């Protein structure tokens, strides 16, 4: 792959990633419907499958955000996809996610004063808030950076 091809491929993937990040966040939030609609019990195999899908998706998103993702791309393309500006955007997204998660915890703490919240429900809410915040924040920063070329 020539330098030009590597750069073009990275540019294309970078744009696609910026478009996909908010979509992934929406998908993740929508999956919560499966958990909360099947609650309590969630004994049916189909419910367990839906919950497992959410967990797998959450783990993959977390890993992709942490490592930079694009694992199947050549090393040079991966390096460009995670260049300096992208790393800064990821770091900023993690900061936003941390703040959102902590605010979610505070909200849940107050909620437990008025209603009973199951441990699994709390985990679902906090994990979803954190990951969604990171995805949206990263997406917004990337889209902004790609604009005004």
């Amino acid at each position, binding site marked *: 792959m020539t330098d030009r091809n590597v*750069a073009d491929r990275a*540019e294309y993937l*970078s744009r696609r990633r910026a478009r996909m990040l908010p979509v992934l966040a929406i998908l993740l939030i929508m999956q919560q419907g499966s958990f909360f609609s099947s609650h309590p019990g969630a004994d049916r195999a189909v419910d367990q499958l839906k919950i497992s899908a959410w967990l797998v998706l959450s783990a993959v998103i977390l890993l992709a955000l942490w490592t930079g993702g694009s694992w199947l791309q050549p090393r040079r393309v991966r390096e460009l996809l995670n*260049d300096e*500006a992208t790393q800064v955007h990821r770091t900023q997204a993690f900061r936003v996610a941390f703040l959102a998660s902590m605010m979610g915890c505070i909200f849940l703490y107050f909620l437990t004063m008025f209603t009973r919240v199951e441990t699994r429900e709390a985990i679902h809410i906090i994990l979803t808030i954190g990951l969604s915040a990171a995805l949206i924040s990263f997406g917004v920063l990337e889209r902004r*950076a790609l604009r005004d070329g």
Partner: protein
Amino acid sequence: MNAARFVMAERLANGLKERRAELGLTQAELAERVGVTRKTVNTVENGVFTPSTTLAIKLSQALGLSVEQLFWIER
């Protein structure tokens, strides 16, 4: 009294766009020379992103200027 209150707002300005235009380079071509994406060059040019020392040196070398000629602090 809080001394920090009297610190003026500082911003890293640069002459990247002008120098790049002088040399007839596109953002993509400059990005390729320094090993980053066009997006990173774009954000540095627009002052949205403050580059690391390493990237600032690479950009200066690619554009044939010293770091101080390419970047300066605006108050």
